[in-house]
C-alpha cells in the first residue's frame, strides 16, 4: 500500500514536471470548461424561469448538483482522464510490453501514468458554484452531511474511473478503439442533471445499472438529506463492486495479452 502510494506520488511528480511545459493549453482548457459551465448555468436559469421545480429539485439544488458534478469530473480528469484516454496508444505502439514486465501493480501504473495536475484548476469553478448554491439554499449542514458528501464524491470519481477504464481495456482486443473519451462525454453530460427527472424505470437504471446516478445525484441527495444516510453503504458497496469488476477485467485482459508485433 505504502509502495503504491509512493509510486502514485512519483508519477504525479513526473506528470507535473511534464505539464509545466504546457501551461498555456491548461489555462485555455480552464477558460473553455468555465465557459461551458457558465452557459449551462444560463440554460438552467432559463429552464427555471418557466418552472419552480424539476421532479422535486429546485434551482439551487440543481446548481449544487452542477457544482458537485464539476468537482467530480475535474478530479477524474486530474487523476485519470489522460492515462485512460491514451491507453489504446500504449497497446497500439507495443509500449505496454515494457510496462507489463515490471514488478508493480500494472493497473495502477496504467491509470496514473499521465495525471493532469492543472485540471485541478477546474475544481475552483466547481467549488465556486457549490458555495454559491449552498449560500442560496441557506441551510446549515452538519459534519455527517459533509462526511457523506466527501465519501460520495470519492465513490463518484471511482465509479467514473471504473466505467471509463473498463471501456479502455477493450483496446487490448481492438487497439484502434478510442471510445473511452466518448464514453466519458456521454456519461458526464447527464451528470449535471438529477437522475430523478428521468422517472422510473430509467432513474433506477441510471443509478444501479449504468451507474451515473452514483457519481453525483446520490452524493448530493445524501448531503441534502433527501435520502437516508444508510444509502451511503449501498453507494460504497456498488462502487467496490464496479471497481472490483474493472480490476478483474484488467487482469483478464492482461493475461490474454498478445502484444503488438515487433
Amino acid at each position, binding site marked *: 500500500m505504502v*509502495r503504491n502510494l*509512493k*509510486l502514485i506520488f*512519483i*508519477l504525479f511528480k*513526473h506528470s507535473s*514536471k*511534464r505539464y509545466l*511545459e504546457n501551461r498555456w493549453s491548461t489555462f485555455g482548457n480552464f477558460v473553455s470548461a468555465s465557459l461551458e459551465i457558465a452557459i449551462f448555468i444560463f440554460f438552467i436559469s432559463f429552464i427555471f424561469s418557466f418552472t419552480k421545480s424539476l421532479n422535486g429539485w429546485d434551482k439551487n439544488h440543481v446548481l449544487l448538483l452542477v457544482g458537485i458534478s464539476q468537482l467530480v469530473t475535474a478530479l477524474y480528469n486530474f487523476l485519470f482522464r489522460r492515462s485512460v484516454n491514451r491507453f489504446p496508444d500504449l497497446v497500439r*505502439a*507495443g*509500449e505496454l*510490453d*515494457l*510496462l*507489463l*514486465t*515490471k*514488478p*508493480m501493480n500494472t493497473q495502477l501504473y496504467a491509470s496514473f501514468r499521465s495525471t493532469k495536475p492543472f485540471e485541478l484548476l477546474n475544481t475552483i469553478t466547481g467549488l465556486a458554484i457549490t458555495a454559491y448554491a449552498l449560500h442560496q439554499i441557506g441551510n446549515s449542514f452538519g459534519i455527517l452531511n459533509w462526511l457523506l458528501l466527501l465519501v460520495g464524491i470519492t465513490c463518484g470519481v471511482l465509479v467514473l474511473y471504473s466505467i471509463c477504464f473498463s471501456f479502455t481495456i477493450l483496446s487490448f482486443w481492438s487497439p484502434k478503439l478510442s471510445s473511452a473519451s466518448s464514453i466519458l462525454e456521454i456519461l458526464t453530460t447527464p451528470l449535471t442533471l438529477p437522475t430523478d427527472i428521468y422517472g422510473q424505470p430509467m432513474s433506477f437504471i441510471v443509478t444501479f445499472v449504468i451507474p451515473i446516478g452514483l457519481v453525483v445525484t446520490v452524493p448530493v441527495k445524501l448531503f441534502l438529506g433527501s435520502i437516508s444516510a444508510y444509502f451511503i453503504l449501498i453507494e460504497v458497496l456498488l462502487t467496490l463492486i464496479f471497481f472490483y469488476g474493472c480490476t478483474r477485467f484488467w487482469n483478464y485482459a492482461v*493475461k*490474454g*495479452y*498478445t*502484444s503488438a*508485433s*515487433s
Partner: protein
Amino acid sequence: MSDTIIDVKNLRKYFKVHQKEPGLSGSIKSLFSRKYYDVKAVDDISIEIKEGELVGFIGPNGAGKTTTLKTLSGLLHPTSGHISVLGYKPWERKPEFQRKFSLVMGQKNQLWWDLPAQETFILNKEIYEIPTDQYNQTLNELVELLEVQDLLKVQVRKLSLGQRMKMELIAALIHSPKVLFLDEPTIGLDVVMQKKIREFLKEYNLSHNATIILTSHYMEDVKELCERVIVIDHGKILFDGKLDEIIKKFATHKTLEIVFEEDIDPEKLKELGKIKQFEPPKAILEVKRSKVSEVAADLLKQFPVEDLNIIEPDIEDIIREVFAGRLLS
C-alpha cells in the same frame, strides 16, 4: 544441469489470426463471419541456456525471435511446452521473477519522452525497490561505462537515437538483472554507436556474469558478442551452437582464389570446379569442401599458378542462403 537458468522444452506459441477476403465486401463480410487460422510463431523449440552465457538469436523477419523473447520474459503465455527462467514460470509474472530480468526492445522505449532520462531511473528505483546506496553505485557505474555523464539532465526527446539507447540500457540495468533480453538493441544506430553498445554489452556480461539473449539483424552484433548462436526460421530452430560451426554445418563449398602467371584455358579449369569469376589473370573457383586439398594440388600441378588462396564462405552469405532454404534441401 545446475547452472542452467533458462530451460525451454517443446515450446509452441501459436497466434489465431483472422483471414479477411479482399475488397470492401470482404471487410463487411468479416464483420459478421470470420475465418481464423493459426500462425505458428514458435513451433516446438527446446533450448538450454547457462548462467553468464551471451546467446545470439538470428533469423529473418517473422522467424519467431521476438516472440520467443516475449514468451521468456512472461509477456506472452505459451500455447504449450515447458519454460523455466531462473526457476520461474515467466507467464505467471511474479514480482520476484520480474525483479531479476530486463527486456530491452530497440524499437520501443520505456523512457519518459518529455523528461530527462534520470527521472525514469528514479521511477525504476521505486518500482524495483532498489536501496539508495545500491542505486547510486549502479547508476554511477553504468553512466561511466556508457560515457553519458553530461546527458542525464537532458530531455529524452532531445537525445540522438544512440544516446537514447544508452539511456534505455541504463533504465533496464539499474536493478542489476541476472538475465537480459535484448531485442535488436542496435537497430537504426550508426556503426560507431553500434560498436560502443556492443563493447558495453560485452563488458557488462563479463563483469556481472549476466545472462544475455540478443536478437539482431546485424551479423556484426552476433559475430562480436555471441559465442553461441541460435538460428531460427519459421518458428523452428535450424541451428544451435558455436558461430563457426555454422560454416561447418551449412557451408558445403569453399572458394579458391587463384592468380595465374599466364593465360590459361577456362574450359580446362571448369573440370576442377565451378567458375564463379574469370578475369585473367585472376579466377575464383567454387569447390566441394571435401575436395579442396585435392583440387588445390591439381591446380598447382596443371596450371602456372602465381598465388592461391583458400577462402571460407562469408557467414552472412551462408545464413542468407540458410534462410532462403538453399542449404537445407
